[in-house]
Structures are given as C-alpha cells and as structure tokens.
C-alpha cells in the first residue's frame, strides 16, 4: 500500500463495524487498503483486472470489486470483508453448506465466492440453479469446477425457504 505519495491523505471508513482512519495514496485500492493497512487478508487478489471476483467485498452492504474501488473514493462508507461475516447468519449457513458440499479446494476464491453467494441468497431467494450460475458468473474458481458451490448455494436457498 502506497503512503509515501504527496497525494496521500487520511481515509476514514467503517470496516467490519469498526471506524478506521488511515493514510493512503489515492491509487490504493480498497483490497490493498484492507490487506496491507488493516491486515484483513481474507480479501484476495486474483487479477486486479476486475474479472476474477476473488477481491469481492461488501460496500454499504453491496458486493463490489475490491480491486476496482479506490479507498479514497469510499470515504465515509461501510466496508464488510469476509472477516466481518463471522457472526452473519447467511454467511454461517453458507460456510456450513460449502464444507458439506466440498465447495472449496485451495480456498483462494472462497472469500469472494461467499460474499457473492450471500448476495444471491439474500437478493434472489427464488433463484433456480441456472439463475444461481448466471448470478455467480463473476467469480472464477480454478479448482472446483463450480459443482459443489452451486450445490451449496442451492442447499442454503432451500433451507431458508423451508424456514
């Protein structure tokens, strides 16, 4: 994370419910801000090109690419990373389903997957498998072939319907 720049400034955010103020150059994207500054290393970087989705985190509750959001541009907003979802009920169900369905191997894509999956589960409770696949298509996994991930999300959608 670059702080030595003459352009660096104090950036204030709420991170996982906690106020954070830290010097950052404007070129610092949110993922680096969190990883290097806050040591919240659960947000992974797989491309920094906006494609892979490994860096997906929540900005004011909505999933966004951590590598394409510059920290300065998020001044005053609330960021939630995978580490901030320990107590989240939907995320807990997803974690349980992910492990039951073997939806992760190396685990590098997993934090981004869970953030996107949580959004799908909460936003689209009626999604069928085809819709789940479309909605999840911005997250790449090189290990699992997606089969377990789709099953895990299905399981959580069904469980929530069942109450």
């Amino acid at each position, binding site marked *: 994370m670059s702080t030595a720049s003459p352009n660096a400034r104090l950036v204030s955010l709420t991170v996982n419910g906690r106020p954070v103020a830290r010097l950052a150059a404007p070129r610092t994207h949110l993922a680096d801000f969190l990883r290097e500054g806050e040591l919240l290393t659960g947000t992974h970087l797989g491309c920094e090109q906006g494609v892979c989705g490994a860096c997906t985190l929540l900005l004011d509750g909505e999933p966004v690419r951590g590598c394409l959001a510059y920290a300065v541009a998020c001044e005053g907003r609330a960021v939630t990373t995978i580490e901030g979802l320990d107590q989240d009920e939907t995320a807990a169900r997803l974690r349980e389903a992910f492990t039951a369905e073997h939806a*992760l191997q190396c685990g590098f894509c997993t934090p981004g997957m869970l953030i996107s999956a949580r959004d799908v589960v909460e936003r689209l409770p009626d999604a069928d498998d085809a819709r789940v696949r479309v909605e999840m*298509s911005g997250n790449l996994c090189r290990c699992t072939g997606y089969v377990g991930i789709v099953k895990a999300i299905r399981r959580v959608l069904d469980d929530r319907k069942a109450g």
Partner: protein
Amino acid sequence: MFGVGARVRRKEDDRLLRGRGRFVADIALVGMRELAFVRSPVAHARILSFDIPEQVRRQVFTWQDLEPAGVRPIRAASGLPGFKVSEQPPLAADKVRFAGEPIAVTVAATRAEAEDIASQVIAEFDELPPNVDMLAAAAPGAPCVHEHWSDNIFLETRVGQSFEKDVAAAPVRISRSIRTQRQCIVPLEGKGLVAHWDRQAEQLVLYTATQMPHIVRSGLSECLGLPLEAIRVIAPDVGGGFGWKGLLQPEEVVAAWLCLHLGCPLRWMEDRREHLVAAANAREHHYEITAYADADGRLLGVDADAWVDAGAYSIYPFSACLEAAQVGSILPGPYDFPHYRCRTFSVCTNKPPIVPFRGVARANVCFAMEQIIDAIAAAVGREAWEVRLLNLVPPEKMPFDNITGKHFDSGDYPESLRRAVAGIDLASVRRRQLQGEPDGRLVGVGFATYCEQGAHGTAVYHGWGIPMVPGYEQVQARITADGGLELRAGIQSHGQGMETSFAQVAHEVLGIPLERIRLVHGDTGLTPYSTGTWGSRSMVMAGGAVATACRRLADRLRRIAAHLLQARLEDVTLSGGMLQSGQADITIAEIARTWYLAPQLLPADVDPGGLEITAGYKPKSDHGTFSYATHAAVVAVDAEVGLVEILDYLVVEDAGTMVNPAIVEGQIFGGVAQGIGTALYECSPYDDAGQPMASTLMDYLLPGFTEVPAIRIEHMETPSPYTEFGVKGLGEGGVIAPSAVLCNAINDALKARGAVVTDQPVTPARILAALRNARAEPPP
C-alpha cells in the same frame, strides 16, 4: 466411518471459509520491501545497454549485479542423449529470448513504488528475428534462440520402428494434422514469495507459493551456491498450482539473492498480467498422425510426428523435453495395437518456457488419439464407442504391458466405456438428432477413454535424467503426550485436501480421531525430503508412507501395551484407538503418557525410537498406478454463431480405492472444468513479433459458472495391486479427456453438415470456418 473411504468434511475448510488462511501475500515481516520486475518488451534481442536514472540507481538490479556476486543461471539438463542444455540467467544477461523475460528488478517500500521505478528503467535492444511458430523454428535455417546451438531442437526422440510393410494392405488409413494451443495455467492465486534471512537460524527462509518446497531448495542451492542446510523453503497456504508452482522460478532466485544482499525481507507477488504474458505457459503441440485400421476399425498401427513448443528455456526440474518425450511414450493411450512409431521434437522458440500443466502431455495426446479413433469409426461406418471398445485393453489382460512398455496395473477399461454409453443414453441422443432441435441447434455426442499414469517411479525419472528423481517418499509420524498425532510430509497440499485425507489414512491404522491428527507439510525445515506434489503422486506415495509409519507406530504401541497389560504381544490388538488384550485395554493416549511422562513403567526392551518414526514408502511396482476413465458429453452447437452448449457431461472413472470420495470428485470436477477451458476457451496467442496477445482475463477466457455444466460422475473402484489400500493417483485425470470428448461431440454434431474441426480451442470462429469449408467442398 472416518477412515479410508469415508466422505468426511475437510479439516482445512474452516480457516479458508473465514478468510483466515495464510497465503504468501498475507505474510508481512517487519521491514519488508517489495519487488517489481522489469520485463523484456521484445521477444528476441541483444541487450545493448540499460538507462537507469541516477536517483533510483540503488534500487535497481540487473545481471551485472547478480553475476559478479556468484549467482548462477538456472540449468535443467536431461540425460537423454542429444539434449541441448539452455542456461537461463534469472535476470537476462546479454540477450533476451522471450517477451516478458525478467531483465531487471526494482526494490521499494511498496509494490506501487517499485513499479514506478521499474517504469523508469529503459533498456536498449538490438532486435533479432523471433522464432514464434514451432514448425518454422524447427526448420533448417531458422535463427537460433541459443546461438551456440546448431538448431532449435532441445531434443528429438524416437519410439518404435517403421512398419509400412506391415500395414500396406490396411483397408483404413487416416491422416490428421492436429494443433493444440498455448495455454496459461492460471491458478487463482499467482506465484508469490517472501524472502528473508533468519539471523538466529542463520538461514535463508523463502516463503513461496510452491508445490515442491524441497526441489525449490535444491534449485536455489545450485543457483546461489549456498549449502542446503542454509536454506529453508516454506509453502504456506497455496491458492492452486496445477503445475505452475512446480518449478524453480527465476524470481525466486533473484529475490533470495537480493534479500541476502540488502539484508531485509522482500516480497514479490506475480500479478495476473505477468502470469499471462511472461511465464505460465503450457500445452502447445502439433501432431501429424497416420493411423491404420482393419475394416472393423481395429487399430493396426499408429505413426506420428509430434512437435512441442517448449519455449526459450529448460525449466528446473522438469526440463524442456519431458513433455514431448512423454508424448512418445503415452500416445497409444489405453489401446492395444501391434505397430507404433513416434518421433517427437522439443522445439525451442522465443516464447516463455513451458511448464508441466496438470495432465501434462496426456490431455494433448488424448485429444489427438481420440479424434483418430472417431475418424476411424467414421471410415468404417460404426459408432465411435464400438471402435473404442474393439481396441481397449480388456480386463482379462490385466496387468498389461503396452507397446511402449507401460505397465497397466488393473481395471476394466471397456466397462467404463460401456457404462458411459449407457449413462449418457446414446440411443436417446441419436433419436434426438434425428428429430432435430426446436431451436435449430445441432446436437452431438462424444466419448473419450484414457488411462493415466500416476505416482511415477524411480526408473522412469532416472531414465529422463533430469535434476529430480523420486525415490522413497517419507513421512514422519509422532504421537504426542496427550494422544494426538502429528504427521510431517514433504509434499504440499494446495487444494487436494491432504490435511484431511492423510488424517483419514492415519485414522484407519491407528484409530486416533481426525481432529487430533495434524499434517505439517510444505516446509523443508520441518518435513522429510520429497520431490513434492506433482504427477498424481501425493496420495499414493505420501499416503502410503503415512500408512507405513502408522503401522510401525502401532507395533511399538502394541509392545508397550503388552507390557502394561501384562499380556502376550500376539494377543494385543489395536482398534478404535484402543489397545486390547482380552478384557484389559489401554488407550493410545495412556501409552503416550507413559512414554513421555512415566518412562519408569516402560518395558526394558522398549524401542528407543519411541512414539516417533520416519517411514519411507514406494509402491510394489515402480511403474506407478494407472487410473482410467471414459468421459462422455452431449453438446448443442449453434451453427449460426458457433456457440457450444454442454448439455450433459458424464465421467465414469476408476482411480482405485478412494480415500475420500468427496475429494476425488472435487478433483475430477475441477479437472473437467479446466479441460472445458482447453476445449473451448483458453488460448494464449502470439503475434508474428512474438508478442503475447492475451494479457488480461478479458482476453484469456477461463470457464466460469455458466460454462461448466453440472458434471456427473460414476465411480468404479478397482484397487491397484501395488499400493497401500489399492489407491491410485488421480489428481490430473479430470483434465485429460474433456477437450477430446467435446471436440468429438462437436464433430458428431457437425457431421450432418460435413464439417470437421481438428484444432483446439474449438471457438465459434473455428466452427463457422469448418462449416464454411464444408459448404465450399461438399462431401464426396
């Protein structure tokens, strides 16, 4: 319930699901600085000079700095006769041989600042004509990538003899030119490292995203001139490898030297652009194949020339020739036929060196061979699966030594095919084809059968004569004072779930609960030597060593138990973590407590090795294991725009005994997804100047959720006669067949229009071109 064969949940999941894994990028050390590499913008040139601004001069390093300090080029020779050795200075010396080759490194407090400096380093080049196409590079008169060579061939190999006379009367003769594209490996986590000098241990410590820490250590030792004990290589959590993390990287050598030179910890993270353009290439082959068959479709002979574009340098440890040379030995696939001849060429070009990508050579060979089988079937007017069935090695011939001396251990290859034909419901696909689709798409079905050697033995690798020869795989097992078990293995788990599956093996033998078993892996400081995780070997080899070590520990436990229970040794049994003799019993934990805390109670003749052991293991046969599978797919081809949808995908596989079926299936799903990428999407093209054209994941398309179908798997489970529990290697299997299956399925769909595709990836442009050509020349 939790031992071998159980579908247990993975021990590694919890930390990964909470974002609390520890990948190399997550490691921060006090005073750590970051590196950026300056890379050659041209494919082939002499470096005339560097222009480095004075104010950053001390933060920039080139070969002029490394060479006088004694750093040596990476050298990976093969002992095969005629192999030409390349030397790869980790920063280019006087010449660059591919666009993206590192030519200088910069150091700064942050990566961004290191890149700022890198952008100010200007090199002046005298450009040379690049070798971009392997066939042109192999032709006489092509400019040499390595000047002191006589041509651009790393190695030529020959297998078999000409057999024209024997097949002169063959009723079927099929010739095909087949191309497979250059691919990138793209684990979701790129390469990365943190290097520092541990002042207390007086050791260079390299945390690196690798599949083979011990081999990286050997390579570093050679390049840096440091003794092995002065180097410790640690692989933390690794975000996928697939071969890309199975070699010594030039960046590792540079960073290691520089951290010693500068006296501070250094980090380098490969970014996705570097990954795509400068390094992780694989799989670019060209085949000229002629096959002969009788009127039923029985193979009489296969005659092939194969070229592999190996790129500019020979990588450590696998060398530049492993891939092509393997083609020669595995092209016959799972088939039994009498005549075979194959010449292979490992061609040196001005492109990044190739790396053995999961299913190395096998995926390409399967693509080529299975197309040939389909073509023979078309020629004799039979269903392609019938022709496959006719040629597969039958179960009654197992174990079977094939035409290139491969020793197939066990299994029923034809049965996998029959089950695939039934499972994909061929008859209904044929009916559907006759009816036609409401949306006008063309439906096709394809099959491919392969067998795959895993857990390669000592002799083959000794035969290659490369810097690494796998011998006994060792594992250390230690029962702790409170009855837990620590396993230490030199392999590296990066998604394969070995922390779980090895625990299952140990549990099977000792009965210690899974949650009390821990695997330490990927650290040269803590684990026995191992060539690492590659070639579908870890479960067979290290898993076998876990079983062996645990059995020996069980013996020692029984001995102590016999003494404590006042029983005869032969009456003491171990089950469920409990040692019993008649009514009397004692837990492993109690014995452990005795060994560690109450040694006065131990028998006089107790084994002084105690509850800790290092055991080595090799399968009973040095030929490794052969798993096999038939894959089948139904596709719909949109002949207007060339898009392919996979309607159904079935794998019928046999990888021997499954330690954890969920992990087995995961490996297959993931492999198939990568194979779909090979078949339809992934390609790293180069222009005439040798410039890589795919530098982002927008250009290099990876299959995603909507491109990979709900793959189905049916298991067969024929144990290997040679391994612990009968397990076979399977990590690579899934990736081998998909490109063949999908190509065959697409050709089945297109056959109504007389069109054939032969090259991968099968893109919309290729499909439409095939259809246009078919229209231009109506079928005879």
